[in-house]
């Protein structure tokens, strides 16, 4: 007799060209014949998103909560895809699922974070976590996370990622039920009677000496140590050429670490302006901050991935993991080119002892266990469920 597990987690992937088929294939693999309470979908913006979601819905059934977003690459047990789809599904009486979505208003991005935090309301399970999938191009990642934190407080951990559109930086999408949203936050409040574990690790290290951000506005840096910021980055990387040449062909991203009490808060610089001699990324860099250029070699990044998974599992009170949601910074891919991606997936498979996992390459990661800050960059965040 087939018993219905008290809690279950499954993952599936598809590289099918047809969007509806890809969605259906991946979700079928993930649910494995069980009735899912929640389905989490990560896919490329290149897909026909509505068709893909319809394919997911057809297989998941009318009662499953569907959430998800577009990516800069998808990952799962089978490996990494670009232009594919990766799905996680979970169910069983041990899990409770609530979802909310909110539009991000330019004038009050916090409100969106606070609104989706409302999804935790009425969730009385022993263990809780809020998974956030946010538009990665609003320019206000911090405020969205702060809004969510202010709504839920220190008692519930936060994880998640910022959606992407491959490498176009034009428009990203979020999935909420059967809707395809943009400029929104989708929240999945997950309650469980089993433990949840979260891992956070990056593997980047500082390059001395530090610099002071002497002029900045929002995510734009104009001066480092009173010298044009672009000049500083080119000089310190021994690179001669334009900003485009530097970021497109030379170094696709430049991590900057902001001085913080216990280390650094990483920002990714991914573009520059030859006229202004300025550079910018996706999150604000406050004037007056002390920053380091950050570097990593392949082994350090792989160690980071391993550490993130190990840390998440270590918090499961000794239970075996049912599965893992992974939010891996797209920036890490740049440090893991030429076979590195496959190595990272292999490292994760090993560290997770074969547990199913699904995730995506993000434009920024969310993870808060302690303290109040929840935004990360160049980091692998893992959420393990047991």
């Amino acid at each position, binding site marked *: 007799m087939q018993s219905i597990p008290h809690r279950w987690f499954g993952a599936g992937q598809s590289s099918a060209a047809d969007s509806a088929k890809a969605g259906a294939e991946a979700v079928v693999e993930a649910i494995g014949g069980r009735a899912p309470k929640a389905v989490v979908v990560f896919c490329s913006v290149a897909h026909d998103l509505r068709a893909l979601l319809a394919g997911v819905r057809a297989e998941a059934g009318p009662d499953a909560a569907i959430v998800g977003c577009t990516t800069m690459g998808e990952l799962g047990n089978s490996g990494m895809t670009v232009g594919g789809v990766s799905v996680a599904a979970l169910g069983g009486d041990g899990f409770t699922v609530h979802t909310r979505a909110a539009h991000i208003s330019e004038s009050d991005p916090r409100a969106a974070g606070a609104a989706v935090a409302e999804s935790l309301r009425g969730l009385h399970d022993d263990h809780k976590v809020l998974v956030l999938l946010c538009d990665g191009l609003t320019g206000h990642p911090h405020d969205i996370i702060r809004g969510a934190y202010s709504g839920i407080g220190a008692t519930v951990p936060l994880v998640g990622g910022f959606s992407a559109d491959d490498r176009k930086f034009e428009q990203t999408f979020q999935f909420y039920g059967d809707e395809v949203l943009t400029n929104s936050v989708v929240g999945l409040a997950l309650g469980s009677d089993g433990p949840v574990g979260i891992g956070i690790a990056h593997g980047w290290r500082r390059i001395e000496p530090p610099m002071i951000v002497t002029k900045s506005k929002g995510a734009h840096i104009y001066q480092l140590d009173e010298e044009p910021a672009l000049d500083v980055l080119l000089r310190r990387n021994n690179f001669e050429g334009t900003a485009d040449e530097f970021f497109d062909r030379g170094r696709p991203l430049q991590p900057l670490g902001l001085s913080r009490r216990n280390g650094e808060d990483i920002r990714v610089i991914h573009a520059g302006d030859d006229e202004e001699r300025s550079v910018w990324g996706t999150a604000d860099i406050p004037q007056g901050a*002390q920053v380091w250029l950050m570097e990593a070699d392949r082994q350090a990044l792989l160690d980071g991935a391993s550490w993130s998974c190990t840390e998440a599992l270590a918090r499961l009170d000794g239970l075996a993991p049912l599965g893992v949601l992974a939010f891996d910074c797209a920036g890490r891919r740049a440090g893991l080119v030429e076979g590195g991606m496959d190595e990272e997936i292999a490292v994760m498979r090993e560290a997770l002892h074969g547990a199913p996992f699904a995730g995506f390459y993000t434009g920024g990661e969310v993870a808060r266990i302690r303290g*109040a800050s929840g935004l990360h960059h160049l980091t692998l965040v893992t959420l393990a469920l047991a």
Partner: protein
Amino acid sequence: MNWSTHLLTEFFTAVNAAENEETAITHAVQRAVEMVEAEVGAVVREGKVLGAYGFGPAVPEARLRAVAAGETLLDVIGRGELYAVPCPLGVEHADALIVARLDEPFGPEERQMLQGMAQVLGLALRSIRVLAAERHLRAEKERQATSAQTRQRLVESLLTIQRAISARRPLPEILDAVTSGAAELLDGATVALLLAEGGQDRRLSVASTCGGTDGEPAHESAARAAMAAGSVLIRPDSTGTAIAAPVRVTGEMAGCLVAHLPGGTEQHTEQRDQLAAFAQQVSLALTDARTVEAVREAHHDPVTGLPNRALFLKILNRVLASRGTSTDPTSVLFIDLDRFKAVNDSLGHEAGDQLLALVARRLRGCVRASDTTARLGGDEFAALLHDSPREAATIVGERVVSAIKEPFRVAGREIFIGASVGIAISREAVEKPESLLHNADVAMYRAKKEGPGRVRVYESFMHSEALDHLSLRGDLQRALREGEFRLQYQPLIRLGDGGPAGVEALIRWHSPTRGFVSPVDFIPIAEEFGLIVDIGQWVLETSAQQVARWRREFPDLGLNVNVSGHQLVHPRFADSVMRALAIAGLPSSAVTLELTESVLMSEPDLGKAALHTLRGLGVQLSIDDFGTGYSSLAYLRELPVDELKIDRAFIARAELTGEDLALVRTIVELAQILGLRTVAEGIENAAQLQALRGLGCAYGQGYHLCRPTDPEELPARLLTQLVEDRVTRPRT
């Protein structure tokens, strides 16, 4: 690595960008919490918990208030006990920024950084509140003014007050604007502003009134009732209706605006609302005054409320830097008060401060609203005039002189002072504010030298003069310290028998660097820089001791000593004189103090008490240079004068004309009528001596009789004088 310093900069940027209190608090709490990797944070302000962050829906308000009061552990449901640190937002209240962390207590460096953050937040909140109050007021105005006409008047009145507030006018001026504005709007109501004083009994004092009399008891009772209720009160009384609107300062009940109108309460509901709006204004003014207190202390003179020197230079710098073209003339007036020190010395500092405040008010009345006036220090003021060429600036300077010349009413009496004005006009494209002000200062010295109440425009030649002037001051200080002064004595001769009646002590200064300097040159400077009191005392003490020694040989020898007006008004002048005489062992009846007519004329009231005291103790008083001032015979009656010295101008001609003689005869006869001695000064030849004897003048002084003489030679001269004079005395 000092991570905290940079975080403070980040924090400062984030908080100062906030436009309202809520945002500032939210940003501050979130940044502070994140920066020390704490879990939760909040602000407790005026007993309320604001910006609570990290608690979720259940904010432990009571426990946060306990932390603000000093508790160091914070129990958070679901997280257990957190290490908490309260950081005060200011000095006055128990307001605090609180952060709390789960894993470890806060180190000293973190605490220090958090204190810094809290202070930054406190400052930001106070300035936001001022702005918010202004906005609130505008909303109030819109809502309350019902008829278009009343609204217009209300707006105008409130705008006047707002201008006064934003122009950082002194608080009393703003409060007066509030009461007079309210009285006008309420059609002839009497309006009083009562403010609670510090201390336990919280006595109410009247800060400003308009119409009616100060502190009517009805006002106070209505005020107390409204303050107790915390809301606007309207109630009938025996003569009409009283409306009282409480005034709060940073949330605290601080006083009450009370109006009294004829008629019953039912016709005054609109007036009640209008008064409430004015009460808001007072709240704003007082809150603003407190908020900017720190800034004002650094930039404003507390006595006059005017910008101080530092701020004036800043403003001047800005004006000079922003000139449209290099030819836009900017003028600086340097205003120095004449005789202010005398007022300050005789009436006390409080009266002096009152006078300065009144002067400041008049100065502001002499310039345009867009011009800047400042108090540079002491009795020096300055004015900055935009786009004012030489002619316009000179007109303003003359306006200042005549405004200050009008009597001031201070401490129950009329005070007459004057002002000298120096003007510098910027011509250069690039001009330093300091040098422009300095040039105006130089021009003022020049003006002062030419006499009281002058206005002079700076010219480059004045610069070297001023340098000399300033170094003279330094040399004088040294002279006093190093004993470079000495005295000569010139006998006063009885014209009847040629015998010496006394000697006049005359100060001499032989400077090692300047050579001989005439008292005519250095006495005014000593007076100007306040050195004259010490110099005068030295003269008195030295000459008293000298004459006391001579009196062993010449027992009836008297001493005449010149006294400056500055000495006369010094509060301890009479004491100083008597002490000098006591030390020397010289009887007071042997001493005659000589005062110039101009001193007595310019300050008829000042020093009168000291002179009467001294006269009572036997010291005699002489009017020097008599007949040269704008003679008012009244003071001869009022002052205890014993002697008139007829100015040398009347007898300087080698041969006296009939007119000269007529004048001298008049003075002598006048003196005889009043029972005064007469001394003729400047007798230079036998003919003059003869003529004066003939007119009945009793005493004389002059080169013909005896030149000023060094003390060691004087006894011999006195003896010779007696002999010679007996020989030359005409036989009758």
